């Protein structure tokens, strides 16, 4: 697990961040999920310590917390690479070449779908529809939506 490499100081700092991100959502409807999203927003991923802390705060079992984290595609257990590409691979995007773009990107960045390249430069994940199906193919690069893309356009966005 990646966060084993962290120093004690970093670990304590992170623990505090997790506490803070979660505690505001205890007692809220669906608070665990909202809290986890906030943990990820602040840490870049959901560190393994979150399981214990959330279980205590929300007064549920660690297994339940783990179950929630693993159920939802948004929650990551590792930091993504320096750049984050989410490529839409759903039907409307397929109809205008999403599969070819996927192949192109994986070659360009020497990475596998759903993974980060060896240099930690880019993470590519599939997404099933961004609601831009009228101007497909679509992608999200570092949080920015782009439509009518090709491999080059996405690569340009990564280096921009």
């Amino acid at each position, binding site marked *: 697990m990646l966060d084993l490499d962290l120093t004690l100081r970093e670990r304590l700092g992170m623990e505090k961040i997790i506490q803070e991100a979660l505690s505001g959502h205890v007692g809220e409807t669906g608070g665990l*999920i909202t809290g986890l999203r906030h943990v990820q927003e602040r840490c870049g991923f959901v560190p393994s310590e979150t399981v214990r802390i959330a279980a205590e705060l929300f007064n549920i079992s660690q297994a339940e917390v783990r179950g929630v984290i693993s159920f939802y595609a948004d929650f990551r257990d590792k930091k993504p690479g320096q750049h984050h590409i989410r490529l839409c691979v759903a039907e409307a995007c397929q109809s205008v070449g999403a599969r070819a773009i996927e192949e192109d990107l994986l070659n360009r960045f020497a990475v596998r779908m759903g993974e980060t390249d060896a240099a930690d430069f880019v993470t590519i994940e599939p997404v099933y529809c961004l609601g831009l199906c009228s101007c497909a193919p679509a992608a999200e690069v570092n949080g920015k939506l782009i439509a009518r893309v090709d491999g080059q356009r996405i690569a340009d966005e990564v280096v921009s």
Partner: protein
Amino acid sequence: MSKQRIFVPLDSAAVALGADDVAAAIVREAAARDLDIEIVRTGSRGMHWLEPLIEVEVEGQRVGYGPTQQSEVLSLFDAGFLEGADHEKSVGIVANLPFMKDQQRLTFSRCGITDPLSLSDYQAHGGLDGVKRAIKLEQSDIVEVIKTSGLRGRGGAGFPAGIKWDTVQGAQADQKYIVCNADEGDSGTFADRMIMEGDPLLLIEGMVIAGLGVGATKGYIYLRSEYPIAARILNEAIEVAKSNKLLGDDVLGSGIAFHLTVFIGAGAYICGEETSLLESLEGKRGLVRAKPPLPALEGLFGKPTLVHNVLSLCAVPWILANGGDAYAEYGQGRSKGTLAFQLAGNIKQGGLFETAFGVKLGDLVNKYGGGTRTGRPFKTVQIGGPLGAYLPEQMLELPMDYEVMAQNGAGVGHGGIVVFDDTADLMAQARYAFEFCAEESCGKCTPCRVGAVRGEEVIDKIAAGTDYDQNMVLLEDLCELMVDGSLCAMGGMTPIPVMSAVKHFPDDFAPRHVREAAE
């Protein structure tokens, strides 16, 4: 002189095509020319092939320019676009374009025109008429209006809204909820997103009326995480509604409370299924619940809950303002009112087209959509999302109508229409349907969880020509098993795209070596 207003969409599609950059360039250029302008960020008109489409007001008419790029802003100013002058990118008076003129926009009447966060704009264009009428009515009268309208669930299943309202209204409980399903997971659909970004007060008004009608005082909007712009706009609109007493302890002086919160999902298609959604909203894994009990009786935290799609709720204000009969005048047969059709995929003029039920599928694809974007021959259209059927060209004659489509093995669904040209391989699309089901299954029942993975394997064998005839039979059996044995429509409807592909495009299911030899 008052500030000249320039309208630039904030809609995700426009932004993804550069609208923010265009808006920034306009501000810079106006400053350089010492012009006093105001940028109004609106929703999109739904003509996405023209996005970013910027508009100016000239003699009470909106003149448009699109698709515009940042680099064209200078020439727009030089040409005098502020006065509506001609330019290479001019489209003329937007409302007069055939794509706009031929629509019957009941729900999207304001989208792309008004400032989504201005309550005065909203009211000036008919907003709040519905809720004001509802306040004067008894609960049962409100439910009666919905029944008369013939409105059916726009999320895809098409269940009569009036019956659902009646059930929730009649249930006795200390707390009831309105839950808006804004998970919009289907590929090929974006109408929910567009209305939430372009006219969020409409959704709020619809939910308030629903609360008044069934006696619910709390509402949630379950929004997918892929829609950050919609999340921002909805939250801002809720603040506007609160400060104007459209939301709060005393809705518009009625003495009745309604509170509304946005909840953001975490990336799970199955959470669009209403019971999975409710589990998720309770902060749990989105495992599907068995029905019955229906959410209408035992929903969120076990309380009676009215779960509706965004567009079902957005139809409500118009219905209350104009009457159930007026709504039922649109459409045909048992498909009443209008639907926001979404033209997507390999299509020249992609976007949103709202019109009464009964419109021909082929008119949406060709007359309004302009045919394939690549210009290659049309091959198929998938309607009703990833769980919907692939239809061949002959079926473009069919009218969009719940019953007619069902008789033809298809469904109107949420109104998504995804076009494919002749390069599409329907065996690959069928395999993808299984792949998607395997990826997104909640895992609760075996026919879906295991069936989807088996489906991928069987198609791979068919492609390879291994025990071909046997595997074609197996594919059909497997689909039958999934239809009969799945707990929810995820597993239960995945066979629709698969078997429609087999039925209408048998040539695509020949083994790979046969197909290659034929080429």
